[in-house]
């Protein structure tokens, strides 16, 4: 992936750039909003990471400018003020995701991958999701695994749907809480783990093949495997 990082704090910018390079991504770093906006407008990137608070123009202004110029590159906004209203503000401005500082690199990486893979505007167009032997019919609301129907509770359905929209990607607990439950907080109890393990039991049975893989310290991956 080709990633643009707009961040005025040198240490944070280096940390992100080095981490992304280690993951095999090509990274450009801009240290001011002006440089960042120029790069974003003149080159093509798979995804843009921008700090919210920058020497003007700030992150919000950059996103608004990009969207006004019909550049739809996914944007992830970083901020020291990781609270909900800020998040809403960032998303309203046209950012696609929002991450509060400080963050774990694995969280940032997982979100960037999810963003870069997101097909623009395609989410509602499909009527069926297929991952390996798993088929989810969105119209009839049925799930089958290798042709066998599986009964899911509404929460399990939403969880599986989100995972099937992002197969093979690491989905962190925070991402799942935000997208599946619409929670803007991290419970101290293992809410996500319990739901994932229940879904897993329904999908995999006592001795079926593992479909949902746990990534230690990061989250979960729905494995893509022809079944």
């Amino acid at each position: 992936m080709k990633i643009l990082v707009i961040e005025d704090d040198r240490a944070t910018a280096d940390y992100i750039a080095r981490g992304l390079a280690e993951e095999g991504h090509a990274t450009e770093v801009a240290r001011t909003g002006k440089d960042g906006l120029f790069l974003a407008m003149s080159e093509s990137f798979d995804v843009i990471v921008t700090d919210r608070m920058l020497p003007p123009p700030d992150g919000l202004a950059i996103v608004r400018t990009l969207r006004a110029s019909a550049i739809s590159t996914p944007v992830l906004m970083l901020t020291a003020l990781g609270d909900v209203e800020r998040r809403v503000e960032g998303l309203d401005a046209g950012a696609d995701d929002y991450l509060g500082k400080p963050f774990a690199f694995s969280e940032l990486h997982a979100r960037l991958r999810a963003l870069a893979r997101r097909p623009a505007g395609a989410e509602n167009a499909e009527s069926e999701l297929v991952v390996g032997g798993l088929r989810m019919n969105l119209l009839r609301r049925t799930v089958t695994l290798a042709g066998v129907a599986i009964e899911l509770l509404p929460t399990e359905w939403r969880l599986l749907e989100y995972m099937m929209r992002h197969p093979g990607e690491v989905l962190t607990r925070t991402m799942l809480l935000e997208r599946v439950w619409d929670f803007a907080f991290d419970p101290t109890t293992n809410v996500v783990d319990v739901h994932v393990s229940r879904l897993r039991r329904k999908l995999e049975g006592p001795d079926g093949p593992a479909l949902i893989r746990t990534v230690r310290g990061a989250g979960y991956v729905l494995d893509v495997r022809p079944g």
Partner: protein
Amino acid sequence: MFAPADTGMRWLNSFALRMAVAVAGSALLLSLVGAGWGWLRADTALRQELDLVLAGEAEGLIRDYEALGPGVLLEAARASARREALLLVLVQTADGQALAGSITGAPASLRGFVTLRSPGRPSLRALGAMLPGGVNLVVAASLSAAEDAARALAWTPLVAAIGAGGVALLLAFFAARALERRLASVSGMSAEVAQGDLSRRLPVTGRGDEFDRLVVTVNFMLDRLQALVLAQRQVTDDIAHDLRGPLQRLRQMLEAAERGGGRVDLPAAIAELDAVLDTFAALLRIARAEAGPGAGLGAGLGAGEGARAEFDLSAMVRAVADAYAPVAEEAGRGFGLDVAPGVMFRGDLALLQRIMGNLLDNALTHGAGDISVVLAAGPVLTVADAGPGVAAAERDLVLRRFGRLDRSRSTPGTGLGLALVKAAAEAHGGRVVLGPWLADGRGLAVRVELFRNTS
């Protein structure tokens, strides 16, 4: 607080005194205008009166002349001259020669009314008439009496105004003194508060006047200020206490690694740091909730308008309960849910979601036995568990920041969860009540009462 060097300046700076001077001055000015107008009116009226008298006298004389002949006229003129009467009579020939009597300055063949002025003598008002037989009659009277009367009348309001002005000045002087004294107590007290003694309060006189109302308002403001400052101080102490621990341990780890050249236990170090960051985030959230909606903490930290939209509280409670129910079941705990349908609420959805999560986390981590979630109209959200509960004496403690019971010290958490619940409830005009859940006094029920904002 004003404290100019010399007292002369101080008096000029007194609002009451300036007011008094203004009142006295305008009273005097108005009286002057009134007096002038009164004098003018009186003078005119008296002159008209005099003219009537002259006309009456002239008519009498003319009637006598017609009935009795010129002798009467001459006699009357001579008599008035002899007596130096107030009313002067002059009889002239048609060409102006005086036949009897004398009026200084009277012109020949005077007809009608005229005012005669001659230097050194009082002005005269004269009426002339030509009689049949070539005789000219002039009747006159001094104007000085009328002028004196008008002047006397005009003086009355003027004297009254001077008196009123003096009294106003005197009253204002005393009012200013009293005002000065009461303001001095406010100024002095404010100075002491400004120097940091927040316990000072203004004395209330009990008269219930506007001063007392002001004093009550200022005292209320000081109460709030003192409470806030005390809370702030408490928070500072708490933060110092709770953050120093993990930071100290982190420092020791790094120092040991540096000294021994050994390895840092990186996961442990990151865990310590994460605990510090969690605590910071929780403190920030509490501070923001306490500041209330829209109040903000410095630039850009205020909750936006979007945080105050109306939403379906019943649906929110059901969704959060839905997420936690499997966790309780996996832990072998019963989970009861009773939600009144269609409870709408105007407030911060994300914050309420979070505090409900906090309560369930608490019930799962610190509580025991069955868990119950009830949303009643009101709206009142109750999260209860059948665990050991919290003793009545400790209920205030657990609602405080970092307030943790000794038995919970070893369990995870920042000790800020319930403090946020309390701050959030109060930010929504409600309150938090802790009590036992079960009839036999066991268990803990946390009632979050959100009275306001319903619709």
